[in-house]
């Protein structure tokens, strides 16, 4: 079967695939950035002693975690025009959906990281005269972040792969573009193997890079 591997199709559709890759990368960077910020805020609120706040955040996180992402994207895209009366561009609609969705996951990871820090550390920080936010900022978070990095990385790689779900709203990321070419030119094996290889290289490099940084800054 590999004898008939059709490289011609790949070369001809390279510009089209590259367009898709740009969307994938753009969306991932924005959504991981936004998701991390929102996720950290959510995690801190969830661990705060103010009960109504932490319960509201818990409800939000659990609700979003229980929906498949593809349905979150679908509902955002089809309901926003009905609710607001104006149609949001499909790119912003999925970006918002991704940030809100990823934030729910990041906040769980961060919460687990914070929970793994011994309570004595906080007591010590408070005894030294730090305010609770300061203790969080200077004592707890740095340690929590170190524990969380591998999992945060995994989640971000998942996010990169999940961008393929934007096909639902008619956007064309890398994987969707490959599927379109596979369908149009009837060369599925070539396209799917290319997708597998490209993602393997991109994600592997990203994870090496994060490991390197982790070591350099001895986090």
């Amino acid at each position: 079967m590999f004898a008939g591997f059709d490289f011609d199709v790949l070369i001809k559709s390279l510009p089209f695939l590259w367009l898709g890759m740009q969307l994938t990368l753009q969306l991932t960077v924005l959504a991981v950035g936004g998701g991390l910020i929102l996720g950290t805020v959510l995690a801190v609120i969830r661990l705060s002693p103010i009960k109504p706040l932490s319960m509201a955040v818990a409800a939000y996180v659990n609700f979003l975690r229980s929906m498949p992402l593809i349905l979150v994207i679908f509902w955002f895209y089809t309901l926003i025009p009905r609710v607001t009366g104006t149609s949001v561009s499909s790119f912003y609609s999925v970006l918002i959906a991704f940030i809100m969705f990823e934030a729910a996951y990041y906040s769980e990871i961060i919460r687990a990281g914070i929970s793994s820090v011994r309570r004595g550390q906080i007591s010590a920080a408070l005894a030294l005269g730090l305010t609770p936010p300061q203790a969080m900022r200077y004592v707890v978070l740095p340690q929590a972040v170190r524990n969380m990095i591998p999992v945060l990385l995994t989640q971000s790689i998942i996010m990169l792969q999940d961008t393929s779900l934007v096909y639902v709203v008619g956007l064309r990321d890398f994987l969707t573009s490959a599927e379109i070419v596979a369908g149009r030119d009837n060369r599925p094996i070539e396209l799917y193997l290319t997708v597998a290889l490209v993602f393997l290289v991109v994600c592997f490099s990203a994870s090496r890079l994060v490991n390197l940084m982790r070591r350099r800054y001895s986090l």
Partner: protein
Amino acid sequence: MGAYNWNWPILLKEPYFGWIVSGFGNTCLIAVIAWAIAFPLGSAVGLARTTELPWLRLIGTAYVELFRNIPLLAQMFVWYYVVPELLPNDWSQWVKRDMPYPQFYTAVLCLGLYTASRVAEQVRSGIEAIPRGQRHAGLAMGLTPGQVYRYILLPVGYRTIIPPLTSDFLGVFKNSSLALTIGVLELTSQARQIEEYTFAAFEAFATATVLYCMVTGLVILIMRQVERRTRIAGTIALGAS
């Protein structure tokens, strides 16, 4: 709601109702079996990466990098359409034509192996989050490395990663929807089929959404209790408790 013509009763008509029921059943079945593969395998791979043996760590790392870095959709495709082509002729023939429910078993295997790479990372990070001193103290007290894992690292490590492991279990549940790419009739594909037949898109997808939320909501509730009961004294309290 604009010009949309609501038609909820259609979901109760046959064959649509039966489709939803069987789709939901398949979704649950795929998720549970795949998790039964992913949890032990992922734990083994994750633990391998925390040992002192370089070759074991290498195998663990290679597994994780390979399986988590390729999109699940592409993995499904490769397992179903590419791997059987590489088998010897008789086997290939069996897998492709004679094996019962080839789509179902391929999807389960693929989802299990993929999720194992995520579980492995959770387990590794859980163990690595334990201060090194505990491992050293255990060894100094004369415990074997196996005993250190059994009595110190595993009980502490697993308890701290319950929330993210819950996420992964929900993930396997939701990712089962990708089985539709190789033709397993699970919940999402049945919703699509109903849409194709009737064009009742909102009704079909809303039903799927509610069913997913119900099951995952139930899992989250159960795991919250587990989390509360197994909390390690002395760590920062969880907000909701």
